[in-house]
């Protein structure tokens, strides 16, 4: 008690710049108790009585509803429910006039009342601490509570700051600084206890360090009522001097805490939450009594009504009904203001309904609020600047706004004007200054929106341009590589082909140029804090990869040039083969390592293909050894070994190795990996090798008649059987892949798309083998085939790799989830204990026979518990923050990558289609077919990417 006394004796109240003292006119309405309002025949309930998304109707015309029944639910995160203020029948849902500056109609629920005033079953909770904060927020949300002081921001949002925000001060705004209005004044005088309970609920939700109520000193009765009601609890009553606009959110924060809310920020940024007393009252009714927000106290005042005073008005009551309830004199009435005379709106139509934010209706006579005199020129007297609570220079703002010089107006901080009207009130030239500011602000917002749109379009265009350039370069590089390979094939055994490294170089140059441009764009975007800087960065990364790829192609082309020397000596050929194979292997290993380091999805695949290559190289080495061993011993053709068969086998092996490499490369490309180019290059090497071998085989066949015919050495196994086995394996692998992909899709794993693509490829593979089998069957006796034994090895690790990747994330998340839950429980417990202890202390304080020591003990206990709760809360905050950051980073990155991939796939598809179109007439059947199949593959890829993107977007939407 001593503490409380001490505190209330020295409350520090700060001051703010400017302010005015218009005639208060509160005596008109503050002397009579709050009386019930009328029960009109019809209530009109706008779906948007609050700031945010309109509510969604839950009823249809003709439905009978009971009092308190929810008839419209929140239409979004920032929205509020609507309840039937009395029982009756919904007669219409449609446009009705509402209070809106533009005089526009809006969609309203129309309720024909039946006079029975029949309640829906409802109940509150006696001890709100039994509910978790989340449940309480839900209760508030479903009770349709929105800020009752004027703005109408949904309260559930304001009291649900997120766990990471610490509330220093909870400020209860009971200033009511506008002339005429006395609704909060009467509410405090008559329902102080309920208000205090509401504030306690807010405290429980927000756990502020301090709770302050600010009341203007022109309401002595309300001040003493509130002081009486909150005796002994940790709520500080601060009496502020009467001055308009002390009740402005920023002003009351400054008055009570000395803090300034930074321009463009919310009070929460300085650890302050502001709530109106009326809102606190509504919260108590909703939580303790189970009554949703269906009525409010509205001041009916002005010389135009016979019985001015405060009325408990049902929401939706047309102002007309309220006026006749208060005994309006229609002849004397000239101006009808909803809200106060400083910031309220004039009503064009008395059919407009009372809504959640309607704190006052002024029925003013011409003498009371005369029409403003004609506007005179601004004499720059500076009176306006003297009273501006935002410390602006209204005369300069006016000057620039009038001249449409928005830039200068903004330089004078136009956007910080709170439209309080103090400047216009004092202006001796009666300039409607606020009107000018509203106009200029609207223009500024419009301009900003237009600018944003233009910027976005430009950035999009630039990014697209960069992408197209890069793709061109990439394509060029690929084309060159293909060309190179073709040429190599043609001039196989002839002299070394002239490698067109110049073209490749050019392509590489272009690619790196594109990359640099992209980097620049990204940097600029970042400097401008553009939204898509991350995207641009990703784009730059990708272009870098492209450039690297192009460079690698150049390198490889250079390497390949000497490699394609004519093969004369068998040992030499083998040597070369061994060299090529082992370098291909090394490349693959390197690529795999890199991929692993980058945590790429296909690292396992790369590793597998590296293994294949190694096996290949080893085999070749063994062969070489053998050949070397045989070379001196049998310079002539060895009768034991049929060279044709041997070559055939070798060709088969080489071409399957080539196929595996191509597959790996394609996949890598699809995933946009860095090492795709390397893989492609190694595939090319292998192809060249295979080609060489094929050529050799052809030659050998041509020479065959001279040697002993084939039947002498029959193949060790029936080729058909082997092919069958292969088909079986391939389709099993395909099926496994499909299953994995499906599972991944169900779990919405990131790599579902990749898996699906994989499965498709395997299917193609299986199909290929099937076709071959068919062919082999048809020509079985004629062509015995050599069976490469090792080609199927890579499949096994491939199928299992993605699964192990998918498993990483959920585990981590689950762990955190568990920790989070534990901390939450700890915090809830600590908080509850603290609250209990606090309540006990309060009870004890009120009792006379408790000793000071006992009180001190209890106080200490309370402090300790609070401390504990605070610690738990801080830990919780930290963890939640971490988790949030993680999730954000994660999903954000994924989405962007996916977007990029989808875009890339689409454009690759488009390019390919164009290329096909172009080549249709000029190219050979074969290349057309190749292109066609490529096109199909790309189409499938694009499809998959699109799907993945869509899914991710939807997911994100849910998260948000």
């Amino acid at each position, binding site marked *: 008690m001593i503490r409380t006394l001490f505190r209330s004796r020295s409350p520090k109240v700060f001051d703010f710049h400017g302010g005015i003292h218009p005639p208060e006119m509160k005596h008109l309405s503050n002397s009579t108790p709050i009386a019930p309002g009328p029960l009109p025949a019809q209530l009109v309930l706008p779906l948007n009585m609050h700031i945010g998304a309109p509510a969604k109707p839950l009823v249809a015309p003709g439905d009978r509803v009971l009092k308190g029944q929810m008839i419209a639910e929140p239409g979004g995160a920032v929205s509020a429910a609507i309840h039937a203020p009395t029982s009756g029948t919904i007669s219409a849902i449609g446009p009705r006039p509402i209070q809106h500056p533009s005089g526009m109609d809006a969609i309203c629920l129309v309720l024909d009342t039946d006079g029975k005033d029949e309640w829906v079953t409802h109940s509150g909770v006696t001890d709100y601490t039994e509910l978790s904060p989340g449940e309480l927020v839900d209760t508030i949300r479903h009770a349709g509570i929105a800020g009752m002081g004027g703005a109408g921001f949904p309260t559930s949002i304001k009291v649900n700051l997120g766990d990471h925000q610490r509330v220093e001060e909870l400020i209860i705004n009971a200033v009511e600084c506008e002339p005429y209005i006395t609704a909060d004044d009467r509410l405090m005088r008559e329902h102080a206890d309920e208000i205090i309970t509401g504030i306690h609920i807010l405290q429980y939700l927000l756990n502020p360090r301090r709770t302050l109520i600010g009341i203007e000193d022109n309401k002595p009765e309300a001040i003493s009522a509130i002081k009486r009601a909150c005796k002994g609890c940790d709520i500080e009553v601060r009496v502020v001097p009467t001055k308009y606009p002390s009740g402005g959110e920023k002003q009351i924060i400054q008055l009570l805490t000395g803090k300034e809310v930074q321009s463009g920020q919310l009070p929460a940024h300085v650890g302050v939450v502001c709530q109106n007393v009326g809102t606190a009252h509504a919260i108590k009714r909703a939580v303790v009594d189970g009554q949703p927000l269906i009525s409010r106290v509205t001041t009916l005042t002005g010389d135009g009504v016979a019985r001015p005073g405060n009325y408990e008005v049902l929401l939706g009551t047309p102002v007309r009904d309220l006026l006749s309830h208060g005994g309006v004199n229609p002849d004397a009435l000239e101006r009808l203001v909803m809200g106060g005379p400083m910031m309220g709106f004039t009503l*064009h139509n008395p059919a407009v309904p009372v809504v959640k934010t309607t704190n006052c209706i002024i029925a003013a006579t011409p003498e009371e*609020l005369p029409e403003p005199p004609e506007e005179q020129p*601004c*004499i720059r007297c500076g009176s306006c600047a003297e009273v501006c609570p*935002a410390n602006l220079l209204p005369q300069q703002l006016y000057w620039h706004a009038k001249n449409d010089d928005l830039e200068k107006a903004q330089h004078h901080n136009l956007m910080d004007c709170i439209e309080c009207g103090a400047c216009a*009130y004092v202006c001796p030239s009666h300039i409607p200054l606020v009107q000018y500011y509203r106009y200029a602000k609207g223009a500024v917002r419009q301009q900003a929106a237009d600018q944003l749109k233009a910027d976005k379009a430009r950035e999009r265009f630039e990014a697209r341009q960069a992408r197209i350039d890069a793709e061109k370069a990439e394509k060029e590089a690929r084309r060159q590589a293909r060309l190179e390979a073709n040429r190599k094939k043609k001039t196989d055994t002839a002299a070394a082909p002239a490698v067109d490294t110049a073209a490749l170089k050019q392509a590489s140059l272009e690619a790196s140029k594109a990359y640099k441009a992209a980097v620049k764009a990204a940097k600029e975007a970042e400097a401008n804090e553009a939204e898509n800087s991350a995207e641009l960065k990703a784009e730059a990364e990708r272009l870098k990869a492209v450039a690297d790829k192009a460079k690698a192609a150049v390198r490889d082309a250079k390497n390949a040039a000497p490699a394609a020397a004519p093969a004369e000596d068998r040992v030499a050929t083998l040597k070369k083969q061994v060299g090529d194979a082992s370098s291909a292997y090394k490349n693959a290993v390197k690529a795999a390592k890199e991929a692993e380091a980058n945590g790429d999805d296909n690292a396992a695949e790369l590793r597998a293909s590296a293994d294949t290559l190694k096996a290949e190289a080893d085999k070749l080495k063994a062969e070489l050894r053998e050949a070397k061993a045989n070379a001196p011993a049998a310079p002539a053709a060895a009768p034991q070994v049929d060279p044709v068969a041997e070559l055939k086998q070798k060709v088969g092996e080489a071409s399957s190795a080539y196929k595996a490499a191509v597959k790996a490369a394609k996949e890598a490309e699809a995933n946009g990996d860095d090492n795709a180019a390397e893989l492609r290059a190694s595939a090319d090497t292998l192809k060249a090798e295979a080609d060489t071998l094929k050529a050799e085989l052809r030659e050998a066949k041509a020479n065959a008649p001279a040697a002993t015919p084939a039947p002498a050495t029959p193949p060790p196994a029936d080729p058909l059987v082997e092919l069958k086995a292969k088909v079986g394996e391939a389709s099993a692998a395909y099926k496994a892949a499909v299953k994995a992909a499906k599972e991944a899709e169900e779990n919405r794993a990131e790599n579902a798309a990749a898996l699906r693509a994989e499965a498709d490829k395997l299917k193609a593979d299986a199909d290929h083998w099937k076709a071959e089998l068919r062919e082999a069957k048809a020509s079985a006796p004629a062509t015995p085939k050599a069976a490469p034994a090792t080609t199927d090895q890579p499949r096994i690790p491939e199928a299992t790799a993605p699964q192990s990747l998918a498993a990483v994330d959920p585990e981590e998340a689950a762990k955190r989830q568990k920790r989070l839950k534990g901390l939450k429980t700890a915090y809830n417990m600590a908080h509850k204990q603290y609250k209990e202890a606090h309540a006990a202390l309060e009870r004890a304080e009120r009792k006379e026979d408790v000793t000071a020591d006992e009180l001190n003990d209890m106080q200490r206990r309370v402090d300790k518990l609070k401390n504990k709760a605070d610690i738990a809360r801080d830990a919780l905050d930290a963890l939640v923050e971490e988790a949030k950051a993680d999730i954000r980073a994660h999903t954000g990155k994924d989405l962007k990558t996916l977007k990029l991939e989808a875009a890339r796939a689409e454009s690759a598809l488009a390019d390919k289609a164009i290329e096909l179109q172009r080549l249709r007439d000029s190219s050979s059947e074969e290349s057309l077919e190749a292109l066609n199949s490529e096109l199909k593959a790309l189409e499938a890829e694009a499809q998959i990417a699109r799907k993945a993107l869509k899914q991710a977007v939807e997911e994100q939407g849910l998260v948000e």
Partner: protein
Amino acid sequence: MSLITSSSPHASVKNNTGAFMRQVIYATLPGLAVLTWQFGWGTVINVLWAVVVALVSEALFLKARGRSIGFYLKDYSAVVTAVLLGLALPPTAPWWLTLVGVSFAIIVAKQLYGGLGMNPFNPAMVGYVLLLISFPVAMTQWISPGDAPSLQQSLQLFAGQLPVDGLSGATPLDTFRTWAGDEAALASHPILHGELAGQGWEWVNLAFLLGGLYLISRKIITWHIPAGFLAGLAAPALVAWLIDPVRFADPLFHMLSGGAMLGAFFIATDPVSAATSRNGRLVYALLIGVLIWVIRSFGGYPDAVAFSVLLLNLSAPFIDYYTQPRTYGHNKPNRGTGS
């Protein structure tokens, strides 16, 4: 019920620009009274005549521009210009001098710029400077203090039928400027040794100070401009006087001579042509004060209120850009033009 719709706020103060201006006119009355006591009826005649000329020129011009005459005359701004110029003119001024000055002030310095609120220069001072440059002799002939001519003489002077020479004498500022540096001569001129400062003029200035304080008390003007003005005038005067009291007049003499108080409270405070923010006004007025001291001490004219005010009028927009207040929610004030 036909309801008025309007934009908030729906209430406003009862006063208006006209009332504002009328307060300024009332506040000049003590000064006018002392001027009349010291120098005869000349100033009253000047003021009345100037008002007539101002109203007629304004009405004619408004008519030519097709504006509502009644509405614009009601703002009293033309009357204020006329009164201030009338007070500044010598009591010996003939009718045509006032006619030229006032009509030029109203038509050229105010209406041609677009009327009230649009004029960058103080119209009264534009008129004054025009006359000072065109008719330097007529503009510098003042009556010796306490040697007031009769009403009849004043009327004759006004009509231009009485030679001024017999009545005129030097002002304290003139006298000091002529004999600065000569200690014996300065001591021998009684006009320099009134109760507080120069004879006669000390009372005139005190009367304007009184009127000015009234304006501050009625919140018609704020203290920034008068305080800045007087500080700007007194500070260099004090320093110089401490260094060489024979060459330089003391600060009190400066503040109570010539148009100092009229300038500080009535002329520099013309809101339209002054800087507009609080800080801006301080800077603006301080510079006017300093400039007056410089011209009085080293320039070719005995007094310099008009020149200094006009020069600073020219700089007012610039000063405004660099003296914006710190807006709520901003860490520091904006500077510059913003473009």
